């Protein structure tokens, strides 16, 4: 611990007098701090409890995923994408498969699209449930909401395990379809899980939504304005909590989302509480999509039989494919030079880009608010550092 000498970029720091600058305290929150959800450091300058400056430090989990993928075949990178945002592997697979399908012009059969929507929305349910659990845990609720969320998540991970063989590293999508078809009885079990989910949401809402401590800790905390959210490329539930009406499922019409009736919840304050509420409401919409998808799913092939699995070489060109992942806009940018591995492979990580505004949200608040704000952004370090 040492005092800060000399001015830095933050205006609040410059406005302080010399004597009060000597009182400032510089601390490193992280890389090993329970609220950082991994290895992530925030160099915080404090004036008492008051945050004057906050500089995030990235890269503790950096393994240059993009470089590895450029020396790997197209299909060979599919299991690696599971490790980006390891809470929701299936949506990572989906975004990558979508980008390659755009690059090579591959059509996806009807049943495979339904399987993608079903597994993708189940992923969204468990991600949002977990996130709210983590957020409450960070703010000191000692377990109960997190355990409730994990109980529900476990049911969904059981479904993933039945379907793909793995709870978390699913490696489920293939270019032009999915890897395996539903095992016998899976759909009935999934219907049971989804039918039970609103009960969990009711319970969760009763427990949390009008909880006085929660409201005190989150309302008017970490307010993100609509203008800054758009300019800073904030996407997903975090942008919608600031009132940005932008859901890629509605805008891009990718996959078969046009067939389902669902609404896009929006917040109006852009604070931590709105980000929490938007996710709660999104789970209800996902339950609606799941019910429709599981009702309508047709029989048929799950992968385009014309796809070349071995020796897959897309023609030279490039493509950017993106989906609405639970964290935000997850995109893959690929350039093919006609060889079996991509010339350029880029992940657009929503977790990293949503952190652009971390300092703006935290400066002027208290130390304890940093934890709530970071929790509400919803990051996974595997994706931030790649």
């Amino acid at each position, binding site marked *: 611990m040492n005092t800060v000498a000399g001015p830095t*970029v933050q205006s609040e720091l410059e406005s302080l007098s010399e004597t009060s600058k000597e009182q400032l305290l510089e601390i*490193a929150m992280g890389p090993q701090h329970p609220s950082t959800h991994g290895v992530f450091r925030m160099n915080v300058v404090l004036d008492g409890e008051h945050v004057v400056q906050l500089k995030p430090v*990235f*890269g503790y989990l*950096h393994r*240059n995923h*993009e*470089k590895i993928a450029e020396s790997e075949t197209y299909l060979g990178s599919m299991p690696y994408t599971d490790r980006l945002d390891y809470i929701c592997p299936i949506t990572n697979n989906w975004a990558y498969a979508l980008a390659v399908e*755009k*690059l*090579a*012009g591959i059509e996806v059969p009807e049943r495979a699209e339904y399987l993608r929507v079903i597994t993708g929305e189940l992923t969204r349910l468990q991600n949002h449930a977990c996130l709210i659990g983590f957020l409450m845990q960070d703010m000191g609720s000692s377990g109960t909401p997190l355990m409730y969320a994990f109980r529900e998540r476990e049911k969904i991970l059981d479904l993933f395990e039945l379907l793909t063989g793995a709870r978390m590293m699913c490696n489920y999508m293939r270019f032009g379809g999915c890897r395996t078809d539903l095992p016998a009885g899976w759909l009935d079990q999934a219907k049971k899980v989804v039918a039970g989910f609103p009960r969990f949401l009711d319970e969760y809402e009763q427990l949390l939504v009008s909880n006085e401590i929660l409201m005190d800790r989150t309302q008017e905390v970490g307010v993100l304005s609509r203008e*800054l959210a*758009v*300019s*800073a*490329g*904030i*996407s997903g539930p975090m942008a919608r909590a600031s009132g*940005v*009406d*932008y859901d890629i499922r509605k*805008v891009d019409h990718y996959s078969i989302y046009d067939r389902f009736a669902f609404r896009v919840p929006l917040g109006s304050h852009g604070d931590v509480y709105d980000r929490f509420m938007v996710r709660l409401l999104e789970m209800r919409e996902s339950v609606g999509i799941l019910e429709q998808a599981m009702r309508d799913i047709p029989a048929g092939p799950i992968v385009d039989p014309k796809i070349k699995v071995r020796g897959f070489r*897309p*023609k*030279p*060109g*490039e*493509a*950017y*494919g*993106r989906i609405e992942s639970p964290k935000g*806009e997850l*995109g893959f*940018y690929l*350039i*093919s030079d006609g060889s079996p591995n991509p010339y*350029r492979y*880029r992940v*657009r990580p929503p977790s*990293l*880009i949503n*952190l*652009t*505004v971390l300092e703006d949200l935290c400066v002027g608040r208290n130390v304890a608010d940093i934890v709530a704000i970071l929790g509400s952004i919803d990051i996974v370090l595997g994706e931030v*550092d*790649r």
Partner: protein
Amino acid sequence: MNLEAIKSEIEAAVPGCRLELVVNPSPSGQHSLRIDAAHAVAVALYLRDAPGLRFDFCSNVTGIDWPGKQTTEKVKVSKLVDGIEQEVEELRTTAAPGSLEVVYHLYSIEKKHGPLVLRMSTGDRDANVHLPSLTPVWRSAELQEREIFDLFGVVFDGHPDLRRLLMWDEFQDHPMRRDYVDPDDYEYEPTAHDGVLRRASQHLSEGGGR
């Protein structure tokens, strides 16, 4: 959304800018516009603010490394061999300078259209690696341009806080370049703890310990 129309619209609004339509042969059909570095900020501001376009959301920013192609040719040179002047064939390699390219994927939240793909190239890969930063136009480029600076070595002029993002500050090379070679071992990032260890061993040696 017609890229040809957007191109002529920008050319009318930003005098002197050089735009080039880059055709993408892949089935994705995402063609792109190459802009020149000198007018990049003006073009970006126009794309963001023009009422018909309103590309207010800069989604993805990334770099691409294009090393120059090495061409080898046989050249006949006259040389003194064993005291006699003879014509000898020699292999001569010439390397094109290559370039670093930065790609921006723009969307419009207001108009709900996109993507519009912008590209910018540096002069070469060693000395002329400067490009104007578009962070003042779209804040979302802040961390992504830092990442490109870190991994590709493009220097963004006008970026408010251009530091390495993922590698540590003392690191020298740019790992995403195609000709990057892994070192045998890495110099690890010095941490505050290293100083403590040094003091501890000094203390022990002074006391007659290790």
